[in-house]
C-alpha cells in the first residue's frame, strides 16, 4: 500500500488551486477566493496534522516520498520533513492562510493575483520539504519569480527624493516606484540564486556520487577549500534573501511597495527561505566551513540587528518601519545560527517562526490601517486607538513580540539567541543583540504611541475597526504569537531534534 503523500499534497494543493482559478473562475471573484481558501485550508490542516503526528522520539526526516525524475543525472523528486522544516511548513501555512483573508479586498485582477500568490506558495512549501537540491532550486525560483508581477502590478509606489552624491543614479533608476521595487527585488534575488546554483553544482560535481540528494551529500565529507568557497556562495546567495547587510536594500523597497499579502508572505516566509538555506545547506552540508566562517556570519548579523533597528527608527513611512524591522530581526536569526550552539540555533529557527508570524501580522495591520486611513505617513496619524481598538490591540501584541516581551514568541527566540551568543566563540555578540532589543522597544513603542495613542488626528475621519474576514487573520496570528510564547516547547521540541545533529557534525570529536 502506498502511504498517503501528505507532503506532496501540502505542497501542490495551492498550485492546483492556482490552475483551477485560472481556468474555472474567470469572472467570479468570490469563486477565486473560495478556491484559494479551500486549497490553502487543505495545506494548513495537513501541516497542522503533520506537526502533531511527527514522531519526536524517532526524529530525523519523516513523511518521506521519492520519485525519480532524471535517473542518469541523479535528479529525483524527494521530499521529507525534519523538526526544522516541519516548523517552517507550519509557518508558511499560517501566513498564507491569514494572507488569503488579508487580501480578500483586492479589487483589480483578483484572479491573476490569487493564482500567482498560490503558485508562489507552492514554491515556498517545495523549498522547505525538498531533499533533492535540484528540485529545491526549482522550487526556490518558483518562489521568487511571481514576486515580480505581484509587486509590479498590484504594488503601490512611494516617494524617495534623490539626494546625496549618488542622487543622479536615483533619478535614472526611478527609485520609489513599484516597478523599480519589483525589478530590484527580482534581480537581486536572481543574482543571489546564481551563487546558489553554482554552489549546488560544485557540491554535485565534487561529491562524485552522481546524486543531488541531500541525504547522500550529507554523508560526504568535502574538502575544506571546497567547503569554504561553497559556503561563501551559499551565504551570499541565500543571505541576499535573508536580508544580510549590505545586500538588504531590496527588502525595504520591495516590502513597502508590495501589496499586503505579498509583504506578509515575503517578509514572513521568503526571507526565512534564505536563513533556512544557510542553516540547512550551508551548515548541514559544509560543517567545517560553517565553523570557519561563523565570525563573518555573526559579525554581519550584529550589524544587521543594530543597523536595521536604527534605520527603522528613522523612517516616517509605516511600511518602511516594518520592513526595516525585518532586516533587524533577520539579523537575530542569522546571529543565533552563527553561534553554533544548541540554544542559539534553536533560537534562530524559533526566531524564523516567531518573526514570520509577527511580521505577517504587522503587514496585515499596516494594510488594514492603509485601507481605512489611506495613509502610511506615521506622523500625520494619531489617536487611532479610539476608532480601531482591535487593530490597536493586535498591533501592540505584534510590537511586544517584536521587542521580545515575555509571553510572546519573540521573547523565547531572543533569550535563546542571547544564551547562545554568550556561549559562542564570540561572547561580545551578546552586546549588539541586547542593544537591538532596546532599539526595537524604542521604535516600536514610538510608532504605536504616535498612531494609536494621543488625541485623534484632525487629518482623518470615518475610521473604523477591522471587519469580517479581516478579524480572522488578526486573531489567528496574534493567537499563534501568544500560544507559542507561553508554550515554546511545542516548537522547540521538534526543532531541537533537527538542530542537535547539525551541531554534532560541526563539533567533531
Amino acid at each position, binding site marked *: 500500500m502506498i502511504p498517503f503523500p501528505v507532503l506532496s499534497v501540502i505542497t501542490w494543493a495551492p498550485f492546483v488551486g492556482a490552475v483551477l482559478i485560472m481556468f474555472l473562475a474567470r469572472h467570479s471573484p468570490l469563486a477565486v477566493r473560495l478556491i484559494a481558501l479551500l486549497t490553502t485550508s487543505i495545506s494548513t490542516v495537513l501541516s497542522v496534522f503533520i506537526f502533531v503526528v511527527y514522531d519526536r522520539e524517532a526524529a530525523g526526516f519523516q513523511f518521506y516520498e521519492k520519485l525519480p525524475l532524471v535517473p542518469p543525472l541523479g535528479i529525483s523528486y524527494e521530499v521529507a520533513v525534519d523538526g526544522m522544516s516541519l516548523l517552517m511548513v507550519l509557518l508558511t501555512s499560517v501566513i498564507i492562510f491569514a494572507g488569503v483573508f488579508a487580501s480578500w479586498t483586492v479589487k483589480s485582477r483578483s484572479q491573476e493575483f490569487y493564482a500567482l500568490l498560490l503558485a508562489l506558495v507552492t514554491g515556498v512549501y517545495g523549498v522547505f520539504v525538498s531533499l533533492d537540491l535540484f528540485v529545491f532550486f526549482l522550487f526556490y525560483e518558483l518562489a521568487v519569480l511571481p514576486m515580480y508581477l505581484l509587486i509590479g502590478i498590484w504594488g503601490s509606489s512611494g516617494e*524617495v527624493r534623490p*539626494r*546625496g*552624491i*549618488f*542622487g*543622479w*543614479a*536615483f533619478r*535614472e*533608476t526611478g*527609485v520609489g516606484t513599484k516597478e523599480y521595487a519589483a525589478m*530590484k527585488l527580482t534581480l537581486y534575488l536572481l543574482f543571489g540564486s546564481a551563487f546558489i546554483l553554482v554552489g549546488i553544482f560544485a557540491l554535485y560535481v565534487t561529491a562524485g556520487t552522481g546524486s543531488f540528494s541531500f541525504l547522500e551529500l550529507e554523508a560526504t565529507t568535502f574538502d575544506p577549500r571546497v567547503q569554504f568557497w561553497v559556503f561563501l556562495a551559499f551565504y551570499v546567495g541565500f543571505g541576499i534573501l535573508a536580508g544580510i*547587510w*549590505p545586500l538588504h*536594500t531590496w527588502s525595504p523597497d520591495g516590502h513597502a511597495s508590495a501589496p499586503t499579502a505579498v509583504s506578509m508572505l515575503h517578509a514572513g516566509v521568503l526571507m526565512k527561505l534564505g536563513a533556512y538555506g544557510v542553516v540547512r545547506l550551508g551548515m548541514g552540508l559544509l560543517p567545517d566551513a560553517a565553523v570557519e566562517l561563523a565570525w563573518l556570519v555573526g559579525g554581519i548579523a550584529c550589524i544587521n540587528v543594530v*543597523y536595521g533597528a*536604527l*534605520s527603522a*527608527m*528613522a*523612517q516616517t513611512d509605516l511600511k518602511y518601519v516594518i520592513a526595516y524591522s525585518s532586516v533587524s530581526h533577520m539579523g537575530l536569526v542569522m546571529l543565533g545560527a552563527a553561534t553554533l550552539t*544548541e*540554544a542559539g540555533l*534553536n533560537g534562530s529557527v524559533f526566531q524564523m517562526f516567531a518573526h514570520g508570524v509577527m511580521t505577517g501580522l504587522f503587514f496585515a495591520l499596516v494594510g488594514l490601517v492603509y485601507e481605512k486611513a489611506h495613509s502610511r505617513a506615521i506622523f500625520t496619524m494619531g*489617536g487611532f*486607538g479610539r476608532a480601531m481598538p482591535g487593530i490597536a490591540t493586535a498591533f501592540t501584541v505584534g510590537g*511586544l513580540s517584536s*521587542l521580545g*516581551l*515575555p509571553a510572546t514568541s519573540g*521573547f*523565547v527566540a531572543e*533569550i*535563546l539567541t*542571547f*544564551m547562545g551568543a*554568550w*556561549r559562542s566563540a564570540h561572547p561580545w555578540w*551578546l*552586546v549588539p543583540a*541586547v*542593544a537591538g*532589543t532596546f532599539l526595537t*522597544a*524604542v*521604535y516600536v*513603542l*514610538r510608532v504605536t*504611541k504616535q498612531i*494609536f*495613542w*494621543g*488625541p*485623534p488626528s484632525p487629518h482623518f475621519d470615518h475610521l473604523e475597526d477591522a471587519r469580517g474576514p479581516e478579524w480572522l487573520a488578526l486573531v489567528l496570528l496574534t493567537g499563534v504569537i501568544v500560544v507559542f510564547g507561553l508554550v515554546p*516547547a511545542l516548537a*522547540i*521540541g521538534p526543532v*531541537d531534534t533537527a538542530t*542537535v545533529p547539525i551541531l554534532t557534525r560541526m563539533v567533531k570529536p
Partner: protein
Amino acid sequence: MRVGSAAVALVVLGLPFASFLLLALVRPLRRSAVAAATVSITVMVAAVVAAFWLSWRARPLELLQSPSTTWSWIPADGGPMATVGVMVDGKSMAMCMLVTFVSLMVQLYSWAYLHDEPRRSLGRYYAYHSLFAFSMLGLVLAPTFLQMFVFWELVGLCSYLLIGYWYDRPSAARAAVKAFWITKLGDLGFVAGIVMLWAAAGTFDFWELFRLAHTNGLPPAGMPLIMFLIYLGAVGKSAQFPLHIWLPDAMEGPTPVSALIHAATMVTAGVFLVNRAFPLFMLVPDVLTLIAWVGAFTALLAATMACVENDIKRVLAYSTVSQLGYMMAAAGASAPDAGFAHLLTHGVFKALLFLGAGIVIHVFHTNDVFRMGGLGGQPWLWVPFVLATLALAGVPPLPGFFTKEAILGGVFEAHLTIPFVMLAVTAFLTAFYMFRVVFLAFFARGLGDSHAHHHVPPLMSGVCWTLAALSVATGVNLARQMLAGAHHEGAPAWLPAFSLGLAGAGIVLAWAMYRRGAIDPARVATVLAPLDWAARRGYGIDAVFAGLYRGALLGFSRVVGWVDRYVVDGLLNVFSAWTLRAGDRLRRLQTGLPQDYVYGVALGALILFVLAQWRMK
C-alpha cells in the same frame, strides 16, 4: 506536603490569570463594567483567601530543603534548558499576601473612584488589573531567574498599559512610553546578567544557584559583573538613581494604579530581586556597597525633590523613590531582612497614602496641594491619611518606625557612615515633606472651606480605614515584639530615640512653616535658592535623558537611515544606473543599417582570420 503547598500557590497564581483570560477573551464581559469588576474582584477575594491559607498552612513546615517545584519550559537535548514553577518560602508567601490584599483593596476602591469613566473601558481596566496581579504573583513565586524575568517584564507591561489607561491624553501616552523605556534600559542589564550567570553555572534555578554559591561552585572572576548587571534591572524597576525619572511621570495613570503598582508592589520588585538573590549578592561585597550608596543617595535626592513639589501625587511618588532607596540601602548593608520588612509595611501604608490622596483629589478636582484644605472638620477623611503619614515619617507605634529604624541600624552596623548620614537626613526630610502635604491638603484655612462636607463614596473611605487598621495592627505587633526583646543586637541603643527625634524635628518644622506660619516658606526658598532651583528641575537628570534620546538616539538613527538610503542603496543604484547607461550606449551599435552590419560581420571575420593565422605560427 510540599507538593500541596505548590498546588495552593498555583491556585493563587492561576486565579487572576483565569480572570484576565475571561475578561480579555469574552467581549460582552469586558464591555460591561459591572460584570468585569465583579469577576475581577470576586477572583481577587478568592486569591486573597488562597494566599493567606497558603501562608497559614505552610507555617509549621519550616520549609524543607528545597521549596521549589518546577516543570520544563524550554526543552533541550540534555534536560530542560529552562524551567518554570513556584517557589514557596517565607518571602514569597509574605509577598503573595501583600500583593493579593492590596490588589483587592485597590480594585474595590477603583470601582468607586472611576465611577465616572465610560463603562465600556472599565472592563479593560479590570482586565489589566487581573493581568497585573497574575504577573506580580508569578514574579514573587518564581523559582528561577528566567521566570522572574518573564514576569518582571509582564509587570512592566501592565505598568505601561495602566499608566497609559487614558491613552488619548498626550501626557499619559508620553509617561507610559517613558516608563517602559527607562525600565527596559535597566532590564537589558538584567537579561544579560542572567544569561551570563546561566553560562557560568548552567542553570537559572535559584535553589541550584544558592547551593553552588554555598559550595563555591561559581567562578569568582565573573561574578561582580554578573551581579552588577542583574542589579541594573533592580535599578530600573525600583527607580534607583539615575533611572528614577520614570516614576514621578508614571503618576499620569489613575490614582488607584499608582497606589498598587507604583507604590505598593511593582516598584518593590527590584528590592525583592536583591532580597531573593541575596545569597548570590553576598559573594560580591563591592556590588553590595554600591547598592547601599546608590540606595542612600537615591533616598536623599528624591526626598529633596519631594520637598518642593506641589502635586500631591508626585510628592508621594518621590517619597516612594526615597523609601525604595531605603530598602535598597538595607540590602546593600547586608541587612536584607530589614529592607524586606520595610517593603511589606511600606506597601500597606504607601498604598493607603495614595488612596487617601485619591480622596482629596476626588474632593478638590486638582492635584495641587496649595488649592486644597479645610478638611479639618471631617476626621473620617483625614485620620487614615495622617496615620499613614505618621507611619511613613517613622512615629511609633506605627510600623514605619520599626522597619526604618532597623534599616538605619543595619547601615550603621555595616560602617557605611556617609550613607547612614544621608538616610538620617532623609528621615528628617520625609517627616517634613509629608507633614507639609498633610497641613496644606487637609488643614489649610480658607481655600477649601466652601467645599464643606463633601460626599466621598463610603467604599473609598472604607478601603482607607481598612488599610489604616491593618497598618496600626502591624505596628502594634512589631512594638510588642520589640518590647519582648526581639530588638536585634549590635545597633546602638540611642538609635530609636535618634530616629524619633529626626521625625519629630521634621514634623515640627512643617508645622511651623505651613500651619503656624512662624517661618515663611518663601524666605527659606530664597535662602536655599540654588538647591530649590535645582530640585524643582529634578537636578536636570530628566533633561539629560531627554537630550540623549532626542539628540543622540534619534539623531544617530537619522544619520543611519540617511546612510542606508543614500550611500548603501545609493551605491547599488549607481551600479544599476551604470548598467542602464552601458546598455544605452551599446544599443547605438544597432543602427538598423544593413551596411553597418555587413561591415561588422566583415570585421569580425577579419579578426578571426588574423587570430587563426597568429595561432598557427
